[in-house]
C-alpha cells in the first residue's frame, strides 16, 4: 500500500511539473471573422502568434483593398490607372504578370479588363437587363489585348477600358496573407476570403465544395488535400431572375452576357491564390473540355459541377474528392 501511494504521488508530481512547464500558447487557437473587400472572411489559426497574425490579416486585407485593388476607393492603384488610362503599375506588376498570362493561355476566356461591361450588370432585388447596345459599346472598349504592359508601365490603348480585379482580388489577398503567416509562429491556418481558401500546416485538410442549391456552409463534396489554395467560381453566387431566365455574374468576355454552358461551378486547387481565382473563372467560361486542358496546362486540380448534377474531377482531383451528397454523381472520363 505504501509503495503504491508513493508511486501515485510521484506520477501526480510529474504530471504537475509537465503541465506547468508546457507552454499553452504554442497551441493557441483562435477563430475570427470580418468584412472587407466587399465580402465575408474567416480566419482560423493555431500557434503562439495567432492573435497578432489575425489582426495583421484583417488590416492587410483592408489596406490591400483600399490602397491597391478597389475600384470604389478613388486613391487605389487600380482606380488611378483606370482614371488615367494607364501609368506606373510597379506595385501590382506581380499580379499583372500572372493575370495577363491567364488571359493569353485561356484565349481571353479570363479577362480582367471587362470593368466597363460588368458595371452594366446589377444584382440587386430590382434587376434590370442592361441595354444590348450599351453592352456592345462597353465590350468594344474592353480587352486585355488592347493593353500594353512592359513589367512596369501599363498603357491602355483605349482610355475607356476599365481594369477590374474582382475575379482575382480574393486570391491576391490569400497570397499576401500567406507571406504574413510564414513570418509568424503559426502552425496551422485556414483562411477564407469570401469563399476562396488558403490552407497552411502539415495536416491533410478537408474542404467542402459548396452546394449550389444550399447555404454558404453546405457542401456536396469534400476535397482531402494538403496545404495550398482552393477557389470556386459558381453561377449561384450573384444572380437574378428576369423574364423567366436566370442571369449570373460570370460574364463571357466575348458576348458580355452571363456564361450559359451547363456548369454550376468550377473549383481549382493550386499553390497560388491568384492563380486559383483567375483559373476558376477562366475554366467556368471555357466549359469542361477546354477548361480541363487549361487547368492541366497550369498543373492544377479541377472540379466541374454541372446543372445535371454531374461532377467531373480532373488533373489529380479524382484522387482526393469524396462526393457527400447523393444527388450528385462523380463521372469518370
Amino acid at each position: 500500500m505504501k509503495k503504491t501511494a508513493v508511486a501515485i504521488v510521484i506520477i501526480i508530481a510529474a504530471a504537475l511539473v509537465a503541465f506547468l512547464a508546457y507552454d499553452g500558447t504554442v497551441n493557441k487557437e483562435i477563430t475570427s471573422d470580418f468584412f472587407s473587400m466587399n465580402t465575408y472572411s474567416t480566419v482560423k489559426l493555431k500557434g503562439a502568434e495567432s492573435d497578432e497574425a489575425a489582426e495583421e490579416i484583417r488590416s492587410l486585407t483592408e489596406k490591400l483593398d483600399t490602397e491597391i485593388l478597389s475600384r470604389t476607393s478613388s486613391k487605389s492603384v487600380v482606380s488611378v490607372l483606370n482614371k488615367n488610362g494607364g501609368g506606373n503599375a510597379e506595385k501590382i506588376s506581380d499580379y499583372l504578370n500572372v493575370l495577363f498570362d491567364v488571359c493569353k493561355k485561356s484565349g481571353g476566356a479570363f479577362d480582367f479588363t471587362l470593368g466597363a461591361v460588368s458595371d452594366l450588370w446589377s444584382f440587386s432585388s430590382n434587376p434590370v437587363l442592361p441595354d444590348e447596345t450599351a453592352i456592345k459599346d462597353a465590350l468594344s472598349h474592353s480587352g486585355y489585348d488592347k493593353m500594353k504592359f512592359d513589367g512596369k508601365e501599363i498603357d491602355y490603348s483605349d482610355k475607356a477600358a476599365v481594369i477590374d480585379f474582382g475575379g482575382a482580388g480574393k486570391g491576391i489577398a490569400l497570397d499576401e496573407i500567406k507571406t504574413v503567416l510564414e513570418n509568424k509562429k503559426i502552425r496551422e491556418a485556414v483562411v477564407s476570403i469570401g469563399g476562396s481558401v488558403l490552407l497552411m500546416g502539415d495536416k491533410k485538410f478537408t474542404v467542402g465544395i459548396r452546394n449550389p442549391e444550399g447555404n454558404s456552409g453546405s457542401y456536396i463534396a469534400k476535397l482531402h488535400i494538403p496545404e495550398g489554395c482552393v477557389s470556386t467560381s459558381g453561377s449561384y453566387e450573384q444572380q437574378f431572375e428576369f423574364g423567366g431566365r436566370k442571369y449570373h455574374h460570370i460574364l463571357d468576355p466575348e458576348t458580355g452576357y452571363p456564361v450559359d454552358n451547363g456548369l454550376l461551378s468550377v473549383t481549382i486547387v493550386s499553390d497560388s491564390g491568384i492563380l486559383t481565382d483567375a483559373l476558376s473563372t477562366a475554366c467556368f467560361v471555357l466549359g469542361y473540355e477546354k477548361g480541363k486542358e487549361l487547368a492541366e496546362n497550369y498543373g492544377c486540380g479541377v472540379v466541374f459541377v454541372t446543372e445535371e448534377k454531374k461532377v467531373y474531377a480532373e488533373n489529380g482531383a479524382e484522387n482526393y474528392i469524396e462526393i457527400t451528397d447523393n444527388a450528385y454523381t462523380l463521372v469518370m472520363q
Partner: protein
Amino acid sequence: MNLKFIKKGDIIMIAVIIIAAAVFMLWNNSKTEAVQAVITVDGEVVKTVDLGNIKEKITFIPATEPRVLITAENGKIRFESAECEDKLCVACGNLSKHGDTAVCLPSKTVITVTGSDVDAVVY
C-alpha cells in the same frame, strides 16, 4: 496466489479508479452534442441560440443598418426578411445542420450553426 507486492487494498484502489474512469467515459459519450446557432454582427457575437431547445418561435432583430429579421423554431433558424437590396441572406432559407451558414453582407450579419466537419467551404 502469492502476490508479494500487491495487497488487497491496492486491488480495491485500482478497481475503484477503473470503474470511475469507465463511468466518466460513459457519461461523457452519452451527452448529445447541442446544435447551436451563433449570430454575429461585424465579427461580434450578439446572440447564441440552442436550436434543440426552442419552445416558442424566437424573433430577433439585431442593431444593424439595413435591418434584418431572424427567426428560429423547431431546430432551425433563418433570415426571415431583410431590408437590404439583394436579399441573398433570405434566399439561404433554413439553417439546421452543423456548419450551415448564411451571410448578409450589407448588414454584416452572419448566422452559423456550429460544428462543421470540414475545415472550410469554397464558394
